[in-house]
């Protein structure tokens, strides 16, 4: 791979729980000012914090370009509701939605719902894959031109362009079709943190973007190759996959300039590898790893969002832009466009136009 592959940058805007909209809006706008691909907002039923998808829906009209990727768990939720809510985020943001699929592994989370006990991560990630699968089916269950508003025949929709999904998963079934018409991006972007083994398999099969944890460019490159091979084995085009290295960054102390994994900072609860240094050091690291072709980009989790995101955007990103390694504006409007991912053709339309059969 050449080193001229576009660089993708994303940032987490979570941190300590905040329930009013202001700080989320401020952070998302800050990230948008740096032309970042997307912001994530992590979430879990097991610790304090508001519903992430709701927060990013609230942020959507207050921003114009940045991608919006809330964590949505698949373990105790209804796949049908999940797919509707993510599609709706895409509608209200005009094509900027993604979702980071996650699972709930603890007994404490299971007790909040009282429907099933905790299960091993392997089974839950398989179920998460099924949720991603049925989500894509539901997003395709309306063809793009299903709404016809044909006054002559009185038909609002062409029901031949709506499709039942009849999905039978290991723990749920969905009849379909979706209630929500196909969203602007066709399918909102699916993100998976592929750090853990069971998640990586699901990521290779269903994700558009995978976050990985690596402590060296070599390790990142190996993970990337592995994910791409695995995606290809599932019949996917590996170029439809973006692999971003997750870094937890602390830009508060500019005296040290360590490589991630090589320094002795405290081990954080977050999922990224820990980086501590100055904004310029971070730009150097990103430049070096990206030039080597090891990664498609980085997902940065600032440990103190208000302070560090500002330094990332005005320091690190500004420098990368100055070096022409990162864009200075958004050439497109949708998250898929930022990521250089095509809008997926609707499988039923494809089957129809290629002479095949659609259900």
């Amino acid at each position, binding site marked *: 791979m050449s080193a001229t592959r576009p660089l993708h940058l994303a940032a987490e805007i979570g941190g300590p729980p905040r329930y009013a909209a202001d700080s989320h*809006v401020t952070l998302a706008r800050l990230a948008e000012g740096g032309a970042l691909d997307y912001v994530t907002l992590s979430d879990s039923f097991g610790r304090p914090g508001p*519903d992430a998808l709701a927060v990013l829906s609230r942020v959507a009209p207050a921003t114009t370009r940045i991608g919006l990727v809330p964590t949505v768990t698949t373990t105790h939720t209804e*796949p049908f*509701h999940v797919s509707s809510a993510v599609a709706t985020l895409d509608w209200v943001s005009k094509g900027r939605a993604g979702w980071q699929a996650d699972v709930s592994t603890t007994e404490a989370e299971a007790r909040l719902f009282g429907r099933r006990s905790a299960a091993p991560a392997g089974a839950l990630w398989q179920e998460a894959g099924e949720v991603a699968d049925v989500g894509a089916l539901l997003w395709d269950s309306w063809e793009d031109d299903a709404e016809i508003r044909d006054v002559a025949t009185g038909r*609002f929709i062409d029901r031949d362009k709506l499709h039942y999904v009849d999905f039978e998963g290991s723990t749920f079934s969905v009849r379909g079709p979706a*209630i929500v018409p196909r969203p602007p991006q066709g399918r909102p972007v699916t993100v998976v943190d592929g750090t853990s083994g069971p998640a990586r398999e699901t990521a290779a099969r269903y994700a558009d973007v995978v976050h990985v944890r690596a402590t060296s460019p070599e390790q990142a490159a190996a993970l990337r190759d592995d994910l791409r091979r695995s995606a290809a084995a599932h019949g996917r085009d590996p170029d439809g996959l973006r692999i971003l290295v997750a870094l937890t960054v602390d830009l508060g102390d500019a005296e040290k300039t360590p490589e991630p994994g090589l320094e002795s900072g405290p081990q954080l609860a977050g999922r990224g590898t820990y980086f501590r240094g100055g904004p310029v050091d971070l730009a150097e690291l990103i430049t070096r790893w990206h030039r080597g072709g090891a990664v498609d980009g980085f997902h940065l989790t600032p440990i103190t969002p208000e302070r560090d995101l500002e330094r990332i955007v005005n320091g690190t990103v500004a420098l990368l832009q100055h070096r022409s390694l990162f864009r200075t504006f958004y050439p497109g409007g949708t998250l898929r466009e930022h990521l250089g991912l095509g809008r997926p053709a609707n499988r039923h339309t494809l089957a129809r136009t290629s002479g095949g059969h659609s259900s």
Partner: protein
Amino acid sequence: MKQMHLAAHFPGVNSTTVWTDPRSRSQIDFASFEHLARTAERGKFDFFFLAEGLRLREHNGRIHDLDVVGRPESLTVLNALAAVTERLGLAATVNATFNEPYELARRLATLDHLSEGRAAWNVVTSSDAFTGENFRRGGYLDRADRYTRAAEFVATARELWDSWTPDGDSRPFAHSGQHFQISGEFTVPRSPQGHPVVIQAGDSDEGREFAASAADVIFTRHGTLEAGRRFYADVKARLAKYGRQPGDLKIMPGVTVVLGDTDAEAQQNAAEIRHQQVSPQNAILALEQIWGRDLSSYDPDGPLPDIDPDPRSDLVQGRVRVADPLAAAARWRELSEAKGLSIRQTAIEATARQSFIGSPATVAAELEEFVTTDAADGFILVPHLTPGGLDGFVDQVVPLLQERGAFRTEYSGSTLRSHLGLARPVWKS
């Protein structure tokens, strides 16, 4: 003087919307939601309301294709609308059968925080297996059980909303009942309204009892003066046994309004709208919904069929059934014979809902009469055009209501509870 409450229904999916009108716009683009919400807020409305349906309706085994169909997920849209409005209440219809208290209570509390106290939940209870085919729990729950689940659901949600103290400390909760056995810690502090406003829609005896015990607002279909007064008296009388005052529960029928410069012009506009709503295809459909039979070979401009309805039919799926098809058919025949009406003309008359038709002055006076004579506490207005269908009402009728002292001229508070004159729920430890 008793002031009325007003809400705007976004007419996404139904047979009210005249989508053939050239002014009709998307029912899904955010711009449409924003337009109607801003209109409602300009009119100082109490809230903006979204209905819900969790499976596309079917007719004769196929997806019904004649009405507006397709809508976004309510809470997600309302969170986005919170960004473009400041005072307007934001009400989502969410089914209590196909959701779980922990997750939904959290989503509602989040909306209440993000909107600074403007969230409401319309608790609906459909139980049918047809809808259940989209969900993990599947399609069970007896008619009787769905209201016990709904009541326990609301009670549980309130326990969760009260599990953080007003000082912001989280306390563990544990609920053990017939439908839910859950425990742990809630992730969201008590929200600006304490509890989001609870609305109930559903008309059976169980539904009314549930509303009397647990709801802040009832969304009803009883929109004529007489039926409205009977319903109002019935429901308000049920409150005492739950230790509640008549003012604790607001009754708001869903109604349509058609305006004209004169009453005669408004009547003419209304006739045209009805004609568009009940197209020839829709007239046959309305008939089939009662008869439970395929009547596609009948001429919409011809007479009603002389065969009887099939009372056990499942021709129509995903909408509230006609309770007694034989009686309904008899009513339609009577109407048709008395006035010499065709199928389509009969459908136009028989399916008409209460509406206020007239000049702005006439409509303002009638709305006020409903409220002052206790047929309603206010109205949920269902426009027939998306999204501009309430522009005329807000520009022409609201000022008259304000002049009469029948409606607020400014919001006096910032939360939906304050618009509705409802007390902030006392925190229960």
